[in-house]
């Protein structure tokens, strides 16, 4: 998108559209967290993930087109360490939202979860480190890829 198109898009956004985009984004984040908690609860029933090991922490985000808004990080405690899911932005080049997943204290060595609305239903895709692959070439977030990523983070 050229700068001219981009500025045009900004001008054309009305407040209701911005509010709808933001609401959808916050819902997408919440659904991601529900998915993560459900999958981890099934993978590790003895850990009582949902009951004892998860905590949401309010955070503020700011995006040029959406303004300032409140959302949450999800912290999952495993083996005495915390895995953090942290929303970054709804409007990112090449995807419809990004949430970072990392081990607390290792923010630079985590995964990017990228929201993909080019497929129906929309999926989250996993990218490790610097993203170089196109969105459709990245693996979707499933129970298996989530398990593998968490093993990698804890390893």
């Amino acid at each position, binding site marked *: *998108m*050229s*700068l*001219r198109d*981009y500025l045009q898009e900004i001008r054309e956004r009305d407040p209701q559209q911005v509010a709808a985009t933001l609401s959808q984004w916050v819902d997408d984040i919440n659904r991601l967290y529900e998915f993560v908690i459900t999958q981890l609860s099934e993978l590790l029933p003895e850990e009582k993930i949902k009951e004892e090991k998860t905590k949401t922490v309010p*955070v*503020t*985000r*700011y*995006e*040029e087109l959406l303004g*300032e808004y409140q959302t949450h990080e999800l912290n999952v405690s495993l083996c005495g360490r*915390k895995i*953090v899911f*942290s*929303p*970054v*932005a709804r409007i*990112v*080049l090449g995807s419809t939202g*990004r949430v*970072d997943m*990392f081990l*607390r*204290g*290792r*923010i*630079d060595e985590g995964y990017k979860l990228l929201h993909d609305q080019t497929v129906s239903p929309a999926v989250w895709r996993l990218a490790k480190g*610097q*993203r170089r692959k196109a969105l459709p070439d990245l693996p979707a977030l499933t129970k298996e890829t989530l398990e593998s990523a968490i093993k990698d983070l804890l390893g």
Partner: protein
Amino acid sequence: MSPLAQAYRRYQVLKALVQEARDRALNSPEDPKNALLGLGEPVNPDELAAFFDQLLNRVNELGFLDVVSTFEETFHARVSAVAASIGTPKLRPAVSVFLGRRREEQTLRTILVLLEQIIDKTALAKLPDIKDERDRIAHGKLSSQPLKVEIEDTWQVLEEALLQALQQLT
């Protein structure tokens, strides 16, 4: 090494130093040196880890601002120098308008306006995100959020935009 590559290198060095300090601190939370961080004694490992995540975020922001401001400075210097060697009558009108602005008006915004008129769309694609991110940080809207653009991408995108611009002044 170009000024933008040097800025990226400064960022890499600073980040590596913080990562090294982080690894030392996390591996030895009881180390007396950790008192320097001002987190109280004994240091809570969770707070220590969160402290370094925030510090790395801040290093990313500072590195990003350094890259973008280096771009603004270099763009002004290189475009002015090349334009002077070409001569004003041969310059594209958009370039003449840009160079006719006062120095303080040759900001990232006006650079993007110029670039939009003289370089190809592919090289332009990431520039609005870079400008948004620069504005967010520079205008105090930190909100402790991670950068949404990679610094490695940023300096390469800006370098490419500068090189293309220098070839499109006439």
